[in-house]
Every structure is written in structure tokens, then in C-alpha cells.
């Protein structure tokens, strides 16, 4: 490493530390918490993916989680809903301790949490409307919620309303494998809205889109969530998205939380330093 690079690296490390110190004040903010994570750890074999992570997300807050590939962001989000079982620690979501819940109670908790994936994860052969109707399975089960053609009228209307909110009402009958990446991701957002969630998690929701579509979808997503005053935790590699759309930024590095700072005060050098190899 050259001396200049070394100096830049040291400066960045100092910035990371400074921001991490600030995070104490954020964590101490009063108000109800929709997410509380304490000493969360997860190993895959010998490899430590999450190393005693702890943070809170206040109700109504938008929080961005950044980190290099393999830092543990997706694992952390999946652990929150126990799509991946954590090894240690506790997660309290919407007032419920996720790790203590049985299968039925866990399903009830998941129903209150919208999850938008990097790859939209829609069922490709089905229409946009049917994919959104699937969101109603958060509240009710049975064949009536498997396909829009057999769903009750009120459910179909609500699904169409959700599609209209993301600007895709005209595409309701279209198969999702004929939609563009941006349109598909908007259908996935509509499906999450159909759940009537109290909290939304999103795993790099626009990473698979081109910059223009990504910007458009991110703006729409955040606007909808702010309008509904929903709590929002999302991962991103886009530092502008992290600081522009979030109230707070969390930074993961090698499974450890090294940044927890208000987005407005987050130091761009410190944020970039998190990607240093």
C-alpha cells in the first residue's frame, strides 16, 4: 500500500469510528421500536457471517443497511424473519420475540412484515394480479387466494388498488414473465403492500435494475412507505440511496456492525471505507 493510500485508509477508519460513536445517541432515542436486534450471530460452517450484531429501528424510521458482498446483509434480513435460523442472540419484531415463536405464531408475525427481494421472486407464469393476490395469504389461507380468478371480489379490488399504487393497474392481466425488471419489482412491492404490513424489509430492492429504473422504483417505494408511515429496513450498495432515502445508515463489515449513524450526518468517506478490501 502506498503512503497516500495508507493515509486515506487511516482517515476512513477514523471516520468509521467517529460515526460509530455518534450511533450511541441514535440508539438512545426515545420511542417505540419495531426492530430490536441483540447479539445476533450466525455461522455457516466454520465461517462467521454475523458477529453479535445489535441495533434498534424506531417505528416509522427508514434505515439503510450497507456493506460489501458477503458482509452479512441478506443473512441479517433473513434472520429477522427466521427464513434463516440465527445461531445466537435475540430479535424482537413488532413487539414479538421472533426466536420464541412456534410455526403458527411465526407465520402470523411474517404476515405483518413485507419483504421485497433483490430478484422480485414473483411466480413467472401467473398474472400480475394473481401475484399481488398472493399477498392476501398473509391474512387468510385457502384456494381462494391462490389465483385471482377464484379470489373474492374485495380481494381482487384491493389487489388492483395495490397495482394502481405502483402504476401498473393496466398490466393486471399480464403474465409477469412478460414485464420488464422495473415493472416486476413494482409488482413485488404491490404484493408487499397487499399484506397491509406494519414493517417492510427489502434486500437490495433495485440492485437488479438499470440506474434509471432503479431510481424510479426506489423513489416510488420510499414514497409509498412514507405515506403509510411504515418502518423500513433495506440493504443497498448504492450509497446515494442509503443516505438520500434513509433516516439512518447501518454499516456491516465482515459480519460486524461498524456504522450506525443518522443518514444526514453520515460521512461519505466512512461509508465508502466499508467497501475497502
Amino acid at each position, binding site marked *: 500500500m502506498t503512503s497516500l493510500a495508507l493515509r486515506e485508509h487511516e482517515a476512513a477508519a477514523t471516520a468509521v469510528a467517529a460515526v460509530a460513536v455518534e450511533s450511541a445517541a441514535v440508539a438512545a432515542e426515545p420511542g417505540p421500536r419495531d426492530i430490536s436486534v441483540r447479539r445476533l450471530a450466525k455461522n455457516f460452517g466454520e465461517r462467521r457471517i454475523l458477529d453479535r450484531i445489535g441495533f434498534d429501528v424506531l417505528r416509522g424510521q427508514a434505515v439503510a443497511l450497507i456493506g460489501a458482498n458477503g458482509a452479512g446483509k441478506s443473512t441479517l434480513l433473513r434472520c429477522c*424473519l427466521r*427464513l434463516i435460523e440465527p445461531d445466537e442472540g435475540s430479535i424482537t419484531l413488532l413487539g414479538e420475540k421472533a426466536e420464541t415463536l412456534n410455526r403458527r405464531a411465526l*407465520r*402470523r*408475525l*411474517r*404476515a*405483518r*412484515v*413485507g*419483504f421485497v*427481494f433483490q*430478484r422480485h*421472486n*414473483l*411466480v*413467472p*407464469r*401467473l398474472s400480475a394480479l394473481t401475484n399481488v393476490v*398472493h*399477498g392476501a*395469504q*398473509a391474512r387468510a*389461507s*385457502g*384456494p381462494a*387466494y*391462490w389465483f385471482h380468478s377464484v379470489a373474492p371480489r374485495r380481494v381482487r379490488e384491493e389487489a388492483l388498488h395495490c397495482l394502481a399504487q405502483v402504476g401498473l393497474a393496466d398490466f393486471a392481466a399480464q*403474465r409477469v*414473465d412478460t414485464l420488464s425488471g422495473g415493472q416486476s419489482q413494482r409488482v*413485488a412491492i404491490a*404484493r*408487499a403492500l397487499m*399484506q397491509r404490513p406494519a414493517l417492510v424489509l427489502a434486500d437490495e430492492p433495485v440492485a437488479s435494475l438499470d440506474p434509471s429504473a432503479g431510481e424510479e422504483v426506489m423513489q416510488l417505494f420510499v414514497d409509498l412507505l412514507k405515506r403509510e408511515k411504515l418502518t423500513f429496513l433495506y440493504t443497498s450498495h448504492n450509497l446515494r440511496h442509503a443516505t438520500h432515502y434513509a433516516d439512518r445508515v447501518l454499516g456491516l463489515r465482515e459480519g460486524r456492525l461498524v456504522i450506525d449513524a443518522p443518514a444526514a450526518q453520515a460521512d461519505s468517506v466512512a461509508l465508502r471505507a466499508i467497501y475497502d478490501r
Partner: protein
Amino acid sequence: MTLQAVAPKGLPRRFEPPGVLAFLLYVAALAVLVAAIDSVEASLDGFIRGLPGIANMLAQMFPPDLSRLPQILRALIETFAMALVGTALGLILSLPLAILATRRFSPHPLVYHASRALIAFFRTVPDLIWALFFVIAVGLGPFAGTLALAIDTIGFCGRFFAEAMEEADHGPQEALTALGASRLGVVFSAVVPACVPSFINTALFTLEKTTRASVVLGLVGAGGIGIELKVAMDLFNYDQAATIIVCIFLLVVAVERLSSLLRQQVIAGG
């Protein structure tokens, strides 16, 4: 830059010589094949001596006798009906059994293993044996054959449906699990729609297979055109047998063509 400059120093051998164990296994496999040929009493001499008999039979087959064509066509329709109903019944029963035989969706490992074992059992016992069993259980006639074909279909489709469901994209399944959908909701909302093309392909292949199988089941009294063929052959009415064989050929080809057309439609439809 010349070719020699960039070429690797030594090309690898086209074929690696087998190890001692592999060589011994090849020799053992060859010995088994030779022993099997010996046990079936295969002889070129016997085949050549049989050729005049085959030629004589073929000569007697022409021209085919069409005098019993109406009865033969009725038996042919019955044969296809057995294949169609047997396949439909088998398909309906295969789906739930296949779900139970899918590791991700089976409610318990014991249920998973029991379902897999049942499907394997249905598949490994030949349809002719099932037909014999059902002839004793429900009597002579097409119903016994239909049940035999249904069981055979469960054995075939149960396995392929389960494998298609195991291989289905996990993304939509994870999304539905994440929103709190039930296990059945995930299966019917995400897995089954994704597997529809594969299911239809398997179902069409099964219909072709059961159509061919339904011809033979008549030999044990399980309905269909097989019994007509057996009687014609036993009475040396080779010209009538020729008519029956041509009818069977036309039925099987028609089903295969129709199935192929439908399959192309499914593939084109994604």
C-alpha cells in the same frame, strides 16, 4: 505470434488408461453380459431357422381380414378409454402423493420416505402384474385394466412430479413463506404453477405409455383389444391379427402425434 509459441507443451492423452479396479470392473461387466447371453439361449442359428416361419406368418397376414372390423374398432375404443381414464385417475392421485414425496413440503421425514417408497413400489411392479391383481379383485374386464393403468401412472407421474417440484425455483417459494403463507399455499401458489409445463409433458408421455400398455393388458383378461389379438393369434387367424395390429399401430401413432402437438403448444406457451 506463432502457433508454437502459444501451444501448450504437452497435449493431454485422448483417453486415460483405466486403473486396476476399473479394469477388473469392465471385465466383470463383460462376463455378466456373456453369461446373460448364454442363459437366454440366444443363437443365430435358431434365428435363421425361424425366418421361414416368420415369412410364412407374414404371408398369411395379407390381405388383412376386415370382416370383424366393427368389433375390433369397439375394442380399440375401449382400449383408448382405459388408457384415458387410467391416466386421468392416476394423475389426480399422483399430485398429492408427489407433494408428500417432496422433501421441502412433506409434513414429516417419515411421510416423505413412506411416500417415496410407495411410489417406487407402484413403479417397479409391472402393469401386467397389477392387471392380474385387479382381475382377481374386481373381475375380468376393462375396469381391472383401468385400475392397473392408474397405479402404473401413479408410480411414473408421482416420481416425475415430485422431482419437478424439488427443482422448481425457490425464489417465489421463499417470497410466499416470508409473507406468512401456509405450506399448502406455497405449493399451490408458487410450486404447482411453475411446474405446469413439466406436469403436462409428463402427463402426455404417460398417456402415450398407457395407450401402449392398455393393448397388452387384454392378454390377462383386463379388457381392451389385447384379448382380440390373442384369440386371433391362438386360432391362427393371422389376417385378422394383421387388421388388429394395424388398428393398434394407428391408435398409438395418433395418440403420439396429438401428444406431440400439445407438447409443442405447452413449450411455445412457456
